[in-house]
């Protein structure tokens, strides 16, 4: 970059000189320009003075006071009530949002109760209609199911079996024995072994 004759250093160039990054061109200008040299010298002194300001410590127990107000997350908890409460009341914005939600919830509940009290007849007729419709739907469902079962090819055999009590009793007995046998086998499978396994000697 070329500088017009007689022009002084720009703020960026002075900054470069103050921070020690003096290029040969800048160095030459400083040697020829007492005003810029003086400015750089004073700025360096100021920077040194600021850098030499004493280090400062907060009062003793600072970390404890901070930690008393910090909620450390529990990695095993999904979200503790305390954390939720803390986040809810963390900022004015979150408090405002929470308050709005609570007010909306309470308002809708109150509105619902008020409307119900003022329209009891409507509610009663609506309830009766819903009950009748529900009953009708259930009855239609049962009818459909029964019709469907009756139309199955195995229904005739099943009916003849049910109509003969001796065969039904024999079939029930065989079914019960099979069921009990399966239960016993399952229980043995799920029982905790009482002896150590030989190769698991830990």
């Amino acid at each position, binding site marked *: 970059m070329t500088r017009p004759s007689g022009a002084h250093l720009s*703020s*960026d160039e*002075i*900054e470069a000189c103050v921070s020690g990054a003096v290029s040969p061109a800048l160095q030459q200008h400083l040697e020829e320009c007492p005003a810029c040299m003086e*400015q750089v010298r*004073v*700025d360096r002194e*100021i*920077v040194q*003075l*600021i*850098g*030499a*300001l*004493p*280090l*400062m*410590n*907060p*009062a003793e127990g*600072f*970390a404890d*006071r*901070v*930690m008393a*107000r*910090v*909620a*450390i*997350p*529990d*990695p095993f908890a999904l979200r503790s009530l305390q954390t939720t409460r*803390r986040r809810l009341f*963390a900022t004015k914005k979150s408090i405002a949002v929470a308050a709005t939600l609570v007010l909306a919830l309470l308002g809708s509940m109150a509105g619902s109760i008020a409307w119900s009290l003022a329209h009891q007849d409507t509610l009663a007729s609506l309830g009766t209609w819903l009950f009748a419709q529900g009953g009708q739907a259930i009855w239609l469902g049962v009818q459909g199911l029964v019709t469907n079962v009756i139309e199955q090819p195995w229904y005739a055999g099943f009916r003849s079996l049910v109509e003969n009590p001796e065969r039904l009793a024999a079939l029930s007995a065989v079914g019960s024995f099979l069921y009990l046998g399966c239960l016993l086998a399952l229980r043995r499978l799920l029982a905790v072994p009482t002896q150590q396994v030989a190769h698991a000697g830990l």
Partner: protein
Amino acid sequence: MPSLQPEWASLSDQDVVLRARSGQESAYRELIRRYERPVFALVFRMVRDRELAEDLSQETFVKALNAIDSYRPEFKFSSWIFKIANNAAIDHLRRRELDTLSLDGSPHAETPEAMQATALQIGARQETPLDTVEAKELGTAIEAAIGSLRPEYRSCILLRHVEGRAYEEIAEILNLPLGTVKTYIHRARNELRQSLAHLKE
């Protein structure tokens, strides 16, 4: 018996943050230990009141550590916490503009003890009484000169020359364009030069 605590010094800020996120209290304390001094120093030189600086620094850490999940590791932790601290200080200054700058202590201190307790502690590094007096005078003058700067200039100059932060990082911390940061620092130094001109004589 070997300690179960990690060698904190060998861990980066990002690693310590990861441990804090997993619920290690010692990691939180390590973050406080690393930044309590620079954060306090920045806030104190911004607000010029020890008691207030304690409160604002405490608020800074509480806010940062309670929101540790929202910290993005691709940015420097130092930038993040300095940003919170600076915002706290600037917000306070905007809310309550300090009318006078007392070098003898907090402008809000009412008793002599409170004044002494909140006074600037300068000269601790000096050796001879004469040096101490001179350094105290110089330190007091520079503190006063920094205190008389606009808050934005003050943040820039402190972050640059006390904390040694790069221009880019200062721009990130203060949420300002890079050129603005450079201009602020240049103007701040010009004002300091004028404020301190009497010391030359």
